């Protein structure tokens, strides 16, 4: 039976609140799949249903071909880390993992192995309640990997990790995928996912927004804005303004044009006899693509305001 997560028409309601609505997607083995969405999009709810903790209101979840609660050796099938992590504060990391291992008859030597692999060897005997956020994440990852599961589900695994920790977990996730495991990792940070995942499931407001590769996801996003500086900014702005095109003066005297490619802006300026001194296409980032796609689905949004780029922060 191959490792995978299959979600079909999944809906979850809490009272009158719909957390997840008619969600359908498949997470395949051998790659790292990112699970992306703003806070409150339904990521954690979906992950709890994958782990058999919450019951779907309707629809189905299959993990490695079976409903999560039907597994007879669950730690072998799916290892999960949820956010927030559940540990008993006065219990040591070692005993936390030992108790978990014993449910499935996993040996003590495996507990030691996992503790070493996540780098908690020196603090394994200390009470888990005193752990830093990063150490707590490592403990959660250790728990998820205890049974050498075919499918790994991690909710916000890089939260609280330092740069070294983030690099470590990226390497770890790629290694797990290379072993043929299904790796499903949630995040609300696009830039993080861009560097970790190769496939993306994007949700917003409990609904599926995109099921695509990272490269395609960036490509399908709105064209990136163009920054332009010229001899007559006022005239150029008047020239470029049209339906579907927005021209915003940036703080340093340049204009930010959205909706027109750089070549057309240059041509328009040349036709009008305006000298262009700077013309640059901003880098399209996953962040932008994500905001474009999810802005309708975000429940609580700060009022729109122009974002200051790094170049303007010195003012």
């Amino acid at each position, binding site marked *: 039976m191959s490792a995978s997560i299959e979600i079909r028409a999944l809906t979850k309601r809490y009272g009158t609140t719909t957390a997840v609505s008619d969600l359908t997607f498949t997470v395949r083995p051998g790659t790292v799949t990112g699970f992306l969405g703003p806070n409150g999009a339904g990521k954690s709810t979906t992950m709890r249903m994958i782990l058999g903790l919450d019951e779907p209101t309707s629809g189905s979840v299959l993990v490695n071909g079976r409903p999560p609660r039907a597994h*007879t050796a669950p730690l072998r099938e799916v290892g999960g880390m949820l956010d*927030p992590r559940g*540990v*008993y504060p006065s219990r040591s990391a070692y005993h936390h993992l030992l*108790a978990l291992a014993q*449910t*499935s*008859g996993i040996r003590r030597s495996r507990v030691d192995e996992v503790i070493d692999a996540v780098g908690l060897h020196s603090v394994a005997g200390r009470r888990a309640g005193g752990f830093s956020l990063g150490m707590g994440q490592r403990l959660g990852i250790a728990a998820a990997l205890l049974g050498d599961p075919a499918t790994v589900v991690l909710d916000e695994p890089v939260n609280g990790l330092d740069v070294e920790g983030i690099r470590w977990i990226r390497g770890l996730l790629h290694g797990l995928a290379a*072993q043929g495991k299904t790796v499903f990792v949630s995040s609300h940070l696009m830039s993080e996912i861009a560097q970790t995942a190769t496939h993306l499931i994007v949700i917003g407001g409990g609904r599926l927004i995109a099921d695509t590769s990272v490269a395609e996801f960036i490509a399908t996003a709105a064209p990136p804005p163009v920054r332009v500086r010229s001899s007559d900014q006022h005239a150029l702005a008047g020239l470029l303004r049209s339906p579907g095109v927005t021209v915003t003066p940036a703080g340093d005297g340049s204009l930010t044009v959205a909706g027109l490619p750089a070549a057309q802006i240059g041509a328009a300026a040349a036709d009008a006899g305006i000298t262009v001194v700077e013309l640059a296409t901003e880098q399209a*980032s996953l962040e932008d693509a994500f905001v474009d796609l999810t802005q309708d689905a975000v429940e609580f949004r700060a009022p729109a305001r122009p974002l200051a780029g790094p170049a303007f922060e010195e003012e």
Partner: protein
Amino acid sequence: MTATTPNPAPVPATLPAYLLSQRVTQARVLRSEWTKLRTQLSTFWALLATMILITGFGIGYSLLREARPPHGAAAIASFDPAAVSLSGMQLAQIAAGVLGVLLITSEYATGLIRTTIAAVPRRLPVLWGKAALVVAATVAASLPAAFAAFLAGQSILARRHLSVPLSQPGVARAVIGSALYLAVAGLLGLGLGALLRSTAAGIAALFGLLFAVPLVAGFLPGSWADDVSRYLPAQAGQAVTTVHPDPTTSLAPWTGFGVFCAYAAILLGLAALRVRRGDV
């Protein structure tokens, strides 16, 4: 930071494969729950409190009755030296019940329950494992404490020639019955904790069941009060801790204990339904 930043070179996971069998069984879950119980600070304190309350209060009340012995034939005839030395059980039942409540509500309070349930998705082995350990741990702590309280209490009362030997009919049963009563009080706590999922609510419900319900029953008119009271959890259960239960106000020892166990069974049954279904 943009999508064009190169990925770091994939590092192979340093974790070796683990290919041994990992079937979840009730025995394995019981071992896991035992590891949790022995590494949980609150269970240690609850068990220590149970032992101290049984012995400390039992000895204290025995000393008090030594100082103020019963006067007159009727008072001496109705004096129950075993009950005096075992009176700490009245307080220890709170500690034992709280132990049961905490064993499950601490998992809900910390979120550990999600880790536990993800590892045991059939769920009920977790509840049964905890139930078995509540009984085992409470009996292990309170049986020696009950014998110690009885022996110390009788040696104090013996100075007034009020003591009763362990060999007298019903006495050993009352001592052992006290430990059994506390074990079932722990099960009531576990059932309430699993139903309510909150430490505060669980302990409040435990107090209500053991202490408030009898108070309310006391307001019933005359003979009704006795008829109803004997079937209430604490009153029924304490028949087994009494050497000579009064047949007009109390059930027979093991009948009463059976009724008390039935309350625990009903609560655990409801808890099982709640644990098995729905969200964690």
